């Protein structure tokens, strides 16, 4: 912050002025003394004199102030008019409603009003920056960070060039007067410096700076502008009145200003358009547009409310969408899970049902068969008994009637043959179909049978362990018959385990190869076989089950033997029973 320099001479001048117009009403004019009070007085003394001359009823007082002082004076309404740089004016206009009455013009310039601009200079040497963008990484000398022509004008151009002050190596503030910027460059404290337009030319003209000493960075053309520029031109300083200043006075002052004869080529003209200044402040988000730079969320939202609305709408839609999708996915997943579970249950129920039906139909057939067997065998057996009994009686009676006895013996033989025929017929019925031999992998058959059997086993809570040997040589067998045998053995195993306490070990199904046979073993952990049971294990109609028919194992053995194999039980030393089926490997495949 700079301070206005109140020298004794200036004070004296004020005192004299005050004395001369003591009885007149005092009109205070604040003037931005950016180059010191003396300079300000020097620059605007002719204006004050003009006003004093044309409006003698007023006593005009010039109050040189720095930027902060002007701001404070306007805020306190301690002045009536203010003369300041375009940047400050725009700030005061927006903050305090000051209104420009006239704009300074320079008659020796074209155009006369847009005379404020800046030039970036750099020592003229190889590698000096050419464009503003080249300033990145350089130190930039400026008079002050809040100077309009001394910095902000260039700040905007840098912004346009995509360069932010933070891209610079640093901003070197030299303070006024602006010649210090030149000094800083000469002293090497900065790589480039910002000066007001025409300062370079003025200094060269004064012989203070060599014509080729400095080069201009980011030079641009401005039609009719007599100096080299790095920025666009802005309107010159305005003469403005405060909001509370009397309109009559303002009108009189304006008329006086506009009629003032140029002094040193400078005069006042009609107020110019300051929108370019506004644009600068808006772009840099400073002064009246500082709220843009503060970028508070609220401000940002206010500035971009329509985008926020769109974004909010989108986010809202997205949230709804995501929630909807989530819900749908969850619902679908739940439905799917339920469906899968239901289908599994249905399949399991269907499998159980099918198995039960198969079992029933098999039992039904066997039951029917058993009844038929009983009835059919009864006849020849009763007949044989009759013959035998009759013969016994004849012999007991001491009668020797060879013809009679021969009849009896023939009858017995005939009935025995008939019984045998019945048995043959039953056998054929049990088999029901032609055995079909095919090349089979025993592991395959076991695997498929287990798939059929899983249901009943799981339902009864028996655990099932499967140990397949793998890579078994093929056997020639009837798949359905082997499956029937395995199902029977598995069913027996489950039945055997039924009474047993649920131990860790359940049913173990394993396949193996021994020399020229492959075998499958079904091991249970039930009570095993007593010697009496073992003796009759394969007898037809021998059963240990309440509902049993005593046909299962006898049919199994028949099937296995018809395959040239063997079926036998082994009581395991650590409890339980193993039923083993060994089947021959056809010689051409056996090694």
């Amino acid at each position, binding site marked *: 912050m700079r301070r206005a320099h109140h020298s004794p001479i200036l004070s004296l001048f004020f005192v004299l002025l005050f004395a001369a117009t003591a009885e007149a009403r005092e009109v205070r004019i604040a003037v931005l003394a950016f180059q010191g009070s003396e300079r300000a007085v020097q620059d605007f003394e002719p204006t004050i004199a003009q006003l004093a001359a044309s409006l003698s009823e007023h006593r005009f007082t010039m109050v040189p102030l720095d930027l902060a002082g002007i701001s404070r004076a306007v805020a306190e309404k301690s002045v009536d008019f203010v003369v300041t740089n375009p940047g400050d004016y725009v700030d005061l206009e927006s903050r305090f409603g000051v209104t420009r009455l006239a704009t300074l013009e320079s008659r020796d310039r074209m155009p006369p009003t847009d005379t404020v601009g800046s030039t970036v200079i750099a020592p003229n040497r190889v590698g000096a920056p050419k464009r503003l963008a080249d300033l990145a990484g350089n130190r930039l000398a400026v008079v002050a960070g809040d100077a309009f022509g001394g910095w902000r004008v260039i700040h905007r151009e840098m912004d346009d060039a995509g360069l932010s002050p933070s891209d610079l190596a640093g901003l070197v503030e030299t303070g006024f007067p602006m010649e210090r910027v030149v000094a800083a460059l000469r002293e090497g404290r900065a790589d480039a410096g910002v000066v007001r337009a025409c300062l370079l030319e003025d200094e060269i003209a004064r012989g203070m700076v060599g014509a080729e000493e400095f080069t201009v960075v980011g030079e641009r053309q401005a039609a009719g502008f007599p100096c080299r520029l790095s920025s666009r031109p802005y309107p010159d300083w305005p003469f403005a009145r405060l909001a509370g200043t009397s309109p009559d006075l303002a009108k009189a002052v304006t008329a006086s200003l506009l009629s003032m004869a140029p002094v040193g080529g400078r005069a006042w003209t009609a107020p110019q358009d300051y929108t370019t200044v506004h644009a600068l402040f808006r772009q840099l988000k400073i002064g009246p547009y500082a709220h843009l730079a503060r970028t508070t969320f609220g401000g940002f939202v206010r500035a971009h409310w329509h985008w926020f609305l769109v974004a909010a709408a989108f986010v809202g839609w997205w949230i709804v969408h995501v929630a909807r999708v989530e819900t749908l996915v969850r619902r679908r997943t739940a439905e799917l899970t339920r469906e899968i579970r239901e289908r599994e249950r249905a399949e399991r129920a269907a499998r159980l049902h099918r198995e039960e039906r198969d079992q029933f139909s098999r039992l039904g057939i066997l039951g029917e068969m058993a009844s038929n067997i*009983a*009835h059919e065998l*009864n*006849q*020849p*057996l*009763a*007949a*044989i*008994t*009759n*013959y035998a*009994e*009759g*013969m*016994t*009686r*004849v012999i007991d*009676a001491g009668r020797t009637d060879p013809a*009679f006895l021969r*009849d*009896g013996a023939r*009858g017995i033989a*005939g*009935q025995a043959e*008939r019984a045998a025929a019945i048995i043959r017929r039953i056998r054929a019925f049990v088999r029901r179909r032609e055995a079909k031999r095919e090349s089979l992998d025993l592991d395959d058959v076991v695997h498929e049978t287990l798939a059929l059997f899983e249901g009943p086993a799981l339902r009864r809570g028996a655990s099932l362990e499967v140990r397949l040997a793998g890579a078994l040589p093929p056997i020639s067998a009837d798949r359905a018959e082997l499956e029937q045998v395995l199902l029977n053995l598995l069913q027996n195993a489950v039945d055997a385990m039924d009474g047993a306490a649920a131990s860790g070990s359940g049913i173990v199904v394993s396949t193996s190869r021994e020399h020229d046979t492959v075998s499958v073993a079904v091991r249970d952990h039930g009570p095993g076989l007593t010697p009496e049971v073992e003796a009759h294990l394969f007898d037809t109609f021998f059963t240990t089950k309440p509902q049993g028919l005593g046909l299962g194992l006898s049919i199994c053995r028949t099937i296995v033997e018809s395959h040239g194999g063997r079926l036998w039980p082994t009581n395991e030393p650590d409890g339980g029973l193993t039923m083993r089926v060994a089947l021959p490997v056809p010689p051409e495949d056996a090694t």
Partner: protein
Amino acid sequence: MTESPRPRIMIVDDDEAMRRSMTFLFASVGLEAECHATADEFLAALSMRPRPGPGALILDVRMPGMSGLELQRRLADQDFPLPVVIVTGHGDVPMAVEALKAGAFDFIEKPFKEQYLLDTVEKAVRRSREVLTRDARRRTIEERHARLGRREKEVLERIMAGKPNKVVAYELDLSIKTIEAYRASIMTKMEAGSLAELARMIATVEPGTGSS
């Protein structure tokens, strides 16, 4: 009285082996058997010889065509005199009970002990003899009774009612002498030695002749 003819066992069974082996068994104890494969065949044979001698009928319940039970009911309707022994397969007990209610002599469940069959048949034969004897006697009495004249039957009826001769004479408007003559004639014709014997004879006949 009359000499006893050899009993004859009749077998109706669809199973030939059963028929033949039973025939053999009966032959071993000296019984003659006559076999029929179906109920119809048996009925046809029966119609040729309506008055069979002593014996028994062995009926298999389960037969194609007319069943054993149906045949038994038919025979009961036509007063077939021989005892009927029903042979049932295992599990046919309710059928056997029905057969017994319908008047079967006994039932034998297959498979049977041949001794039981023989014992049953023997009992049946004995029963058949009794029935035949009783039937024969009744037929004799009926024949004698049929020889009585109208007046003799009227007198016999009143005598059996316990009426003295003079009451009978009064009721029939005849003389006591005439009643006494009829009475002597009745005794002769009925071959009765005493009034008590005559009464027994009439009691035997009465249920059968009362209505005719």
